[in-house]
């Protein structure tokens, strides 16, 4: 056996006084970390296989387990960190591109945490959402730029197709294939109960889920997996995925191991083949091509559904968004670079794109400067982590937010960032039947509904504090925000004042 250049990342710590050898950990670990040794009459572990998903810790009935980072340390360097060294060892061993999952763990600025929210004092009453009406209904789509009258003088109340959300929170795109059928079912059922929308991602729509169509956004990505007439007809809106925050400039890659029978049927590709989305849409090499795809999809769906264009937040995102707003899209979804992914090249995930806060602020301001903010709604995505992030996003100018990582957390994910391995112990990012069944959609849907209800309550609470009783009065209301510890340049881009001003 060749020399192993780096040690296990994690260490399994088992409290012998507590371990009752029930072997639940062993049965639950798809990485085969835990095992029973008859000679010792003890549970033992193979630390190097552990990904720190915390499944065993959560299920251990006596709380006997702990997973902690291996404290073994390479000689410290601020430049060549241990992580970087391990990555180089790994690549020297395999010759391969490094793959990662979920959002970047790197220490980039999180602007949400450098923005503070206002509240009413004295001159204006705060509002108690438990006693007064407090509204979070949102419409997404094109708005008229003025009143149109009918020949009889009455107001023409016809609108272009729109989405109606009971809460400004939608579930972001995660494809069937990258996540399990039970995860999709949980999302679909929760979206239906909540009066919001979930997004199929680029993997098509499983035949069992067409019934959730009125609360489904169907995605059309560069691979066009599973796209056909019934699919387009099934959803409430169609999303063209131009990019993803976690991996701008490249397409998705679903390994063949995840393409089992149902995924293969849904994606309309052979079993066991890798599903590789091209980096660009090969029919979109420029903005005028995008317009053609938008209108092709509108034609195909008889102009009954709004079309969303989702883009990754990149350096010139404001100009791109302006182009999209003039290209017939009804909604623009902007995905920041801290957003999650089921698999992405590590170097791209950790280095390409810009934060959603800056992208959102720049896009909203640009569209207003050009007087075309009414042409589109804006959905912010890519690391919206809590109700307060939602409030800040809306105050910066978003009409609604997309959340994905929090939905995974609701279903059990512990952000071990090993989705690409396909062995998710929580039954989410896997297609292995024995693992998939670990996520009971009754439980998953309920927890998702709880999560969004909780966030919605918090949004209402925060709005009430500001003296706002409907979410539309929060949208773009940047005076309600102040920066803390930000440079003047950052404040200018965010369009907010510094705390104390």
């Amino acid at each position, binding site marked *: 056996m060749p020399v192993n250049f780096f040690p296990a990342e994690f260490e399994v710590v088992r409290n012998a006084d507590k371990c009752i050898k029930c072997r639940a950990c062993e049965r639950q670990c798809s990485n085969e970390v835990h095992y029973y040794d008859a000679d010792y009459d003890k549970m033992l572990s193979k630390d190097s296989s552990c990904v720190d998903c915390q499944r065993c810790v959560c299920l251990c009935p006596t709380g006997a387990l702990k997973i902690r980072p291996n404290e073994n340390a390479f000689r410290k360097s601020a430049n060549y960190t241990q992580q970087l060294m391990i990555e180089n060892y790994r690549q020297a061993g395999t010759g391969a591109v490094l793959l990662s999952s979920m959002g970047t763990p790197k220490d980039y600025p999180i602007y949400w945490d450098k923005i503070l929210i206002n509240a*009413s004092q004295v*001159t*204006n*009453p705060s*509002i108690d959402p438990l006693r*007064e*009406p407090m*509204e979070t*209904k949102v*419409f997404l789509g094109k*708005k*008229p730029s*003025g*009143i149109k*009258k009918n020949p009889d003088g009455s*107001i023409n*109340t016809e*609108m272009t197709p*729109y989405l109606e959300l009971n809460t400004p929170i939608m579930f972001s795109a995660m494809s069937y294939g990258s996540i399990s059928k039970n995860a999709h079912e949980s999302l679909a059922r929760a979206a239906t109960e909540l009066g919001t929308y979930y997004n199929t991602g680029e993997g098509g729509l499983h035949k069992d889920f067409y019934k959730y169509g009125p609360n489904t956004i169907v995605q059309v990505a560069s691979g066009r997996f599973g796209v056909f007439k019934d699919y387009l007809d099934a959803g409430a809106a169609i999303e063209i995925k131009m990019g993803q925050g976690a991996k701008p400039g490249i397409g998705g890659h679903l390994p063949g191991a995840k393409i089992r029978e149902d995924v293969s049927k849904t994606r309309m590709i052979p079993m066991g083949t890798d599903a590789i989305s091209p980096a660009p849409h090969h029919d979109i090499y420029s903005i005028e091509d995008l317009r053609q795809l938008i209108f092709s999809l509108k034609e195909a769906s008889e102009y009954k559904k709004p079309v969303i264009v989702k883009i990754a937040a990149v350096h010139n995102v404001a100009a791109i968004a302006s182009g999209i707003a003039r290209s017939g899209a009804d909604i623009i979804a902007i995905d920041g670079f801290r957003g999650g992914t089921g698999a992405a090249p590590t170097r791209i995930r950790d280095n390409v794109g810009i934060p959603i806060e800056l992208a959102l602020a720049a896009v909203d301001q640009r569209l*207003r400067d050009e*007087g075309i*903010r*009414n042409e589109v709604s804006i959905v912010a995505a890519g690391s919206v982590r809590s109700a307060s992030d939602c409030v800040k996003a809306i105050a910066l100018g978003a009409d609604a937010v997309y959340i994905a990582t929090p939905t995974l957390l609701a279903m059990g994910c512990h952000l071990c960032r090993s989705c690409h391995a396909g062995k998710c112990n929580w039954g989410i990012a896997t297609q292995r039947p024995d693992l998939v069944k670990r996520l009971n959609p009754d439980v998953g849907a309920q927890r998702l509904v709880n999560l969004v209800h909780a966030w919605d309550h918090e949004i209402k609470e925060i709005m009430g504090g*500001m*003296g*706002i*009783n*409907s979410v*539309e*009065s*929060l*949208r*773009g*209301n*940047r*005076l*309600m925000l102040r920066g803390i510890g930000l440079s003047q340049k950052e404040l200018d881009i965010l369009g907010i004042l510094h705390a104390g001003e």
Partner: protein
Amino acid sequence: MLLKEGEIRIPSGCAISGLISRDGNRINGGEIVKSISYMHDRSNGLGGGFAGYGIYPEYKDYYAFHVFYNTNEARERTERFLDRHFDVINLSRIPTKKIPAIKNEPLIWRYFVNPLPTKIASSQLDEKEFVAKCVIRINNDIDGAYIFSSGKNMGVFKAVGFPEDVGEFYRLDEYDGYAWTSHGRYPTNTPGWWGGAHPFALLDYTIVHNGEISSYDANRRFIEMYGYKCTLLTDTEVITYIFDWLNRKQELSLEDIASIIAAPFWSEIEGYEKSEPEKAAKLKYFRNSFSSLLITGPFSIILGYTGGIMALNDRLKLRSMVVAEKKDVVYIASEECAIRAICPDCGNVWSPRGGEPVIINLSEEGKRKCL
């Protein structure tokens, strides 16, 4: 250093009062001064003002510009601009009375003007839009000049001081009009800038407002997409622009405007879905299309316009406002005392519900007399 309006957003509490004779009988300005004076404690001496309608019958076809100047140089620059764009029929200082309570007054001038037809034609704008653009341009571009009233047969009078002193200073008992509104201000800080007092006016629209709206920046950033520039950062300014855009430019009725800026709650709209589906559809359309014009937070406003006044509360009714009537006169005020002060035996006193507009227009007789 204290920053003035436009450099900083200053919250204020306030008193408002208004009255209108539906039959167009002319009411002396002294009445409104007396009314607002009874709410002395709702102001703190840092701003008061009035708007009178039907006060310039002899010049009713001309735009009456009331202007503050800091310097004579500003006046000269402004007058050169006016000469280039308008036919100036009459100009004079607005008559005032020196009183100890009102100090540091700027130069206060009044012009009766009509825009030059050739200038309107070359601007490709309609007449009102042309006038509005010129007013905004002077206010933005000429340092030390500020047009605070620009409608026909109406005028705004405002200053830093208690409203009753402002009324005396402007000698309002020498004016008669069919409608008046007034405002006493309670700002939480102020540099004492006269332009920052209320009413705020654009063309013949005037707004007096009591409250502090929490939706301000959402409203501002929306309305600024349509060519407005909120330079004062006050609620009153943005509300005036919203009315101007929805009423003058989009030609929406005042009732419809009320259901946009103080929109009914969804629970109420859903209630109409069965009984009045068309009404429900219209309300839903408004809330969807003009959601950024919803005004939240406390407000009570009186909008003055040629031929009428409208009072409106925010939809939660977070500010007091009372309406009363006697014969053809309708009174509106923050507190009932301000009405009883000038009409002790008024009847039909009521508090409009939150979001319920009270719109009082001149009767046919009133229109004949005044318009």
